[in-house]
């Protein structure tokens, strides 16, 4: 059998501005935490991949952050495309951020029909927990068990974060076992990659002085 590539699974973070999506992203990417919202630290960082091993199988989780688009505008529908999993994030001390999740859930099922959905209550280190386990359970029942699992995390202390991502990796390996085998069938679409090294072509329609002609190897 041919060598199989380690499958990449796009995982997206969804939820209101300020619930800690970028903090989860930073914990995941660099295992750090900054207390105030410091955009600089993730500026230019698009997504981050980590490999997990689940029962002798390797899987790559590719975590995507919103880039802060949800602050005033809405997130592009592109963000959801090709996602295998979506994490609905809310802040445990902010009931409003929890109650608005049904809206985010709707976006996920609209644009990423096949994504598995997870629920994450963040900021578990804060004393005043205003969203209870019971609330979370009720939410899952209300959305017809679309939610595969629920977690409580604290990006500040790091508690529960790594556990959540390993568990999601496990869920995705199970969900994909059958699908990966089917996948070979209909995928003639592709990503554009830089062309391989080739002689510099002075004839290409290139705007003068723009370095777009030189091919990235």
């Amino acid at each position, binding site marked *: 059998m041919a060598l199989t590539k380690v499958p990449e699974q796009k995982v997206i973070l969804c939820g209101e501005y300020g619930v800690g999506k970028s903090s989860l992203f930073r914990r995941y990417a660099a295992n750090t935490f900054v207390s105030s919202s410091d*955009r600089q630290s*993730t*500026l*230019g*960082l*698009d*997504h*981050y*991949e*980590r*490999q997990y091993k689940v029962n002798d199988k390797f899987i*790559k989780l590719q975590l995507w*952050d*919103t*880039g*802060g*688009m949800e*602050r*005033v*505008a*809405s997130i*592009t*529908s*592109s*963000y959801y*495309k*090709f996602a295998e999993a979506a994490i609905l994030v809310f802040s445990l001390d902010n009931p409003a951020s929890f109650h608005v999740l049904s809206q985010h859930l709707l976006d996920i099922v*609209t644009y990423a029909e096949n994504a598995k959905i997870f629920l994450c209550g963040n900021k578990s280190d804060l004393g005043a927990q205003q969203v209870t386990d019971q609330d979370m359970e009720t939410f899952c029942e209300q959305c017809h068990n679309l939610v595969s699992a629920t977690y409580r995390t604290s990006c500040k202390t790091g508690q529960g974060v790594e556990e959540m991502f390993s568990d999601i990796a496990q869920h995705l390996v199970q969900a994909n076992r059958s699908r990966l085998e089917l996948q070979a069938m209909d995928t*003639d*679409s*592709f*990503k*554009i*990659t*830089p*062309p391989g090294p080739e002689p510099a*072509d*002075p*004839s*290409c*329609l290139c*705007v003068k*002085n*723009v*370095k*777009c*002609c030189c091919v*990235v190897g």
Partner: protein
Amino acid sequence: MDEEYDAIVLGTGLKECILSGMLSVSGKKVLHIDRNKYYGGESASITPLEDLFSRFNAPKPDETYGRGRDWNVDLIPKFLMAHGQLVKLLIHTGVTRYLEFKSVEGSYVYNKSGKISKVPVDEKEAFSSDLMGLFEKRRFKNFLVYVQDFKEDDPKTWKDMNPNVTTMKTVYDKFGLDPNTQDFTGHALALYRDDDYLNLPSLTTIKRIKLYSDSLARYGKSPYLYPMYGLGELPQGFARLSAIYGGTYMLDKPVDELVMENGHVIGVRSGKEMARCKQVYCDASYVPDKARKTGQVIRCICLMSHPVPGTNDALSTQIIIPQKQVGRKSDIYVSLVSYTHQVAAKNWFVAMVSTTVETDQPENEIQHGLKLLGPIQQKFIWIQDYYEPIDDGLASGIFISKSYDATTHFETTCLDVLDIFRRGTGEDFDFSKVKHDLGDEDQ
């Protein structure tokens, strides 16, 4: 909103989103506003199907159209040249990672007899083509060989014709190509919309033909690519690039005024709020008094349940109807994409016929294109004014993009964007500023 920005971009069409991304990457503080509540403006792919129907005041689609949200219908049909400017921009900005593409299956050209023929691009195809007689095939082959061997910096390959001086007409004549062959070469390979190029130096035309064949060499079947889920994914990709480099997005935000001081823009007002800035980048619809109408483009969106007859059941196609073949001054373009691109419900196809308007009965002008399609379940006709800025924007700090023309690819789109960026910032875009490896690295 009440803050100060280096640049405010108005409208989230493809050109504005590319500019926004390039400006943010260059370290500028950017505010990007759209009056609509969706991304893309006229570059959006309309979804669900119900929205497309209501946009054109048509009654709701019935159940034969399948699920409304399986549709993503472009308003402005274009393909990407696999070796063209937009692909370079996508690669160098890393935006390509948000997208998946399919190769367009076939490229066809229409001839006087009312038939369509596959566009021959190499010697083998030229010899099996029904477009030319036997002797003409030989002459065309010689011409193709000349173009393939041509090097701008090597006069030995010029065949004694200085490409900066000799007109394309002279080059055709030297190879003895008949008017029909000239026609499909100029319109289906070099992708000119009219015949003005014949009397210009041949260099540009030769480069365009090379772009076509280089693009073809990249992925095979045709030189064109099309993104899954429609062209609306392109502006969104660049918007995300802008956002992750710190750009701020506001949708559904009316723009009431560009605030000026001594003839230079100092901000944008929305209701009682005002954002200050040094520059504004926008499409003409935000500054109607600073743009002039220079023409019209007619586009007809056709929903069909079959491919175009005579194309070997291709699931995606481009057909060019050169102006002369139907007695016009500008070409008619037909493009077709399908459910396999996630732009239509299962077994549906979306065709688009478009051209530059020449008469006061534009709907008659596209008949030659519509006739090729076979039965059409639903048609939507859209006539769009084409605007150009009245000045270069340097004095006012307001840089305006041209409307999207009738061409079927993005080459002119990218040239306009790169030109605006250069005017606005005084420099060419530095692709090395994009850290596009960061996200792709393991651990």
